[in-house]
């Protein structure tokens, strides 16, 4: 007797999904739990964690931002292998502003966010017409090249980097600033991707030619998506510069390119929540494995392979499915 798995939406999902008149607390709780858990979790965690794990939480939020930025780009059909470009450009802009002209962090971070977005967009503008793996390779090469240029020309402090940035007022400001922006990005851009605008972006990923046929200028949309994504990355870089009080060549390191991809692959692409979930899992894991030294990169490579091959949809869609649907085995009709 052959059987197959049948998935049906839960009753509560059907009731609360389509009809916008919520009739019971159960439905309200059902709808709000997935939204409230991350918000409340991220807002409360800094209060109960010690200083060390607070720093870990900070880097969770930073990598979540980078992963969200990667996911937005990937949704638009641009797979970037160089998030470090965005991170690094943002870091260097705020670093230079603060180091040479003494601009305070609360002015230099927004400037770096916008300027970083503009500069990265202009840098990648010539390659927007490339698709697939060619675009990825260009994004992989640019950060590597910028590192070498900084090394060779000795601009911005060369190999030593710039030190002595103004720190943010307190560690609470650091944590809550990054977490706040991350939550805004997560929910705001999730909403954006579900809107008509996001539909166009995802259409470009699925079939760019038919979007062109619909009379939409896909390059203009791609430019906008690129600006959004690179601004998010630049913000992450700018904040981290003021946290470390240092900016140097490590901001273009492979970590900042590979880790966001790993986070999205683990969490599940397409839903920015998956990217955030991936960062929440991977960053503490990599901290816990710090004792293994170089071996943790090996673990994390194996992790990446297993997830790409065995669970390509990621963890978040799995959880989402379990939350919204129930499953049962039914006999296959003859």
């Amino acid at each position, binding site marked *: 007797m052959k059987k197959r798995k049948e998935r049906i939406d839960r009753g509560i999902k059907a009731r609360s999904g389509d009809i916008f008149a919520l009739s019971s607390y159960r439905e309200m709780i059902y709808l709000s739990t997935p939204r409230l858990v991350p918000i409340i979790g991220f807002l409360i965690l800094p209060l109960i964690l010690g200083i060390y794990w607070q720093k870990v939480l900070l880097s969770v939020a930073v990598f979540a931002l980078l992963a969200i930025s990667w996911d937005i780009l990937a949704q638009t059909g641009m*797979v970037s*292998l160089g998030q470090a470009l965005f991170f690094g450009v943002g870091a260097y802009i705020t670093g230079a502003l603060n180091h040479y002209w003494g601009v305070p962090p609360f002015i230099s971070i927004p400037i770096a966010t916008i300027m970083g977005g503009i500069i990265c967009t202009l840098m990648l503008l*010539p*390659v927007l*017409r*490339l*698709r*697939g*793996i*060619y675009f*990825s*390779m*260009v994004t992989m*090469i*640019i950060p*590597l*090249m910028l590192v*070498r*240029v900084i*090394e*060779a020309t000795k601009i911005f402090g060369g190999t030593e980097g710039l030190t002595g940035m103004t720190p943010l007022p307190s560690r609470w400001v650091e944590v809550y600033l990054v977490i706040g922006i991350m939550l805004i990005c997560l929910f705001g851009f999730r909403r954006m991707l579900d809107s008509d605008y996001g539909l166009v972006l995802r259409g470009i990923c699925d079939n*760019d*030619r038919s979007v*062109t046929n619909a009379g939409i200028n*896909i390059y203009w949309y791609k430019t906008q998506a690129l600006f959004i994504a690179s601004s998010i990355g630049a913000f992450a870089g700018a904040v981290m510069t003021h946290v470390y009080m240092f900016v140097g060549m490590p901001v273009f390191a492979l970590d900042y390119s*590979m880790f966001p*991809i790993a986070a999205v*692959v683990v969490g599940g692409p397409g839903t920015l929540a998956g990217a955030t979930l991936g960062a929440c899992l991977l960053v503490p894991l990599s901290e816990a494995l710090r004792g293994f*030294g*170089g*071996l943790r*990169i*090996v673990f994390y*490579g*194996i992790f*990446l*392979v297993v997830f*790409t*091959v*065995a669970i*390509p949809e990621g963890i978040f869609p799995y959880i989402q499915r379990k939350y919204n649907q129930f499953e049962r085995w039914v006999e296959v009709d003859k």
Partner: protein
Amino acid sequence: MLTGTIIYALINSVILCLIAMGFNLTFGISGVANFAYGAFYILSAYTTWIMINSFHLPYFLSVIFSIIFTMVLGALMYQVVLKRVRGQAISEVIATFAIGLSILELFRYLGFVGFEYNLPPFIDASIVIMGTYVDVQRIIIVIAGIILIMALWFFTHNTSLGLAFRGIAQDERTALTFGIDSDKIATLAVSIGAGFAAIAATVIIPLGTISPSDGYDILMKALAVCIIGGLGSTGGVIFASFLIGFAERFTDTFIGSHWTMIVSLAALLIVLIVKPSGLFGKQKELEERI
């Protein structure tokens, strides 16, 4: 000085060509992205080293063993990992890059770093060519390079297997209708590509030491040469390796060693932007841009 630079630039070009050959075979000719290529190169060198120093096998046998070992590993990687993500270019890149990362970092973790990790040159001597000292190992590299290039050219143009390799890169579905088993060919492509990496490592590594961080450089160089030359074009790869080889040596001598990597990366970037299929690539001109 100029003749010396030219001679070393020639040798450098052949080294680049040797490095790129295997990558060109897997990625360029048969379209399978193997970003663990640099790791295979380093892995085969370490395998030879372990065979010589821990198992005390003769040099020749160790080399043969390491080439076969790398080829088997390549085939295994295709069957276990790549087969499941075939066709999704980005997943292929992420999975193979992660495998390469794991291999290289594992060697680094196990402490395989230092000057004692080197391979002996085949013949430890040097000769004088037009007033420049050149060691015999570099001459061997040039000869090996020429032989391999000719073998590869003959293989991809005159044997049915080589034609099948090019077939699956050009159009996998059409290749299937001609009875080409794309999984089998792709396995072979990854495996033979890994074998080429092992051969390249065997002749090139005696010039220096084995170090895990070289793995990333090797991958970058192979990528640069293959893309500039044009995917799937053996002649283009040769041309590109001479272009980059000469550019690297000349910037090293006349501008500064910091700039060598920038020159090749800038060349790569310009080619990708202007003509992503490479200077000599004819395939897929339609699919790479919109």
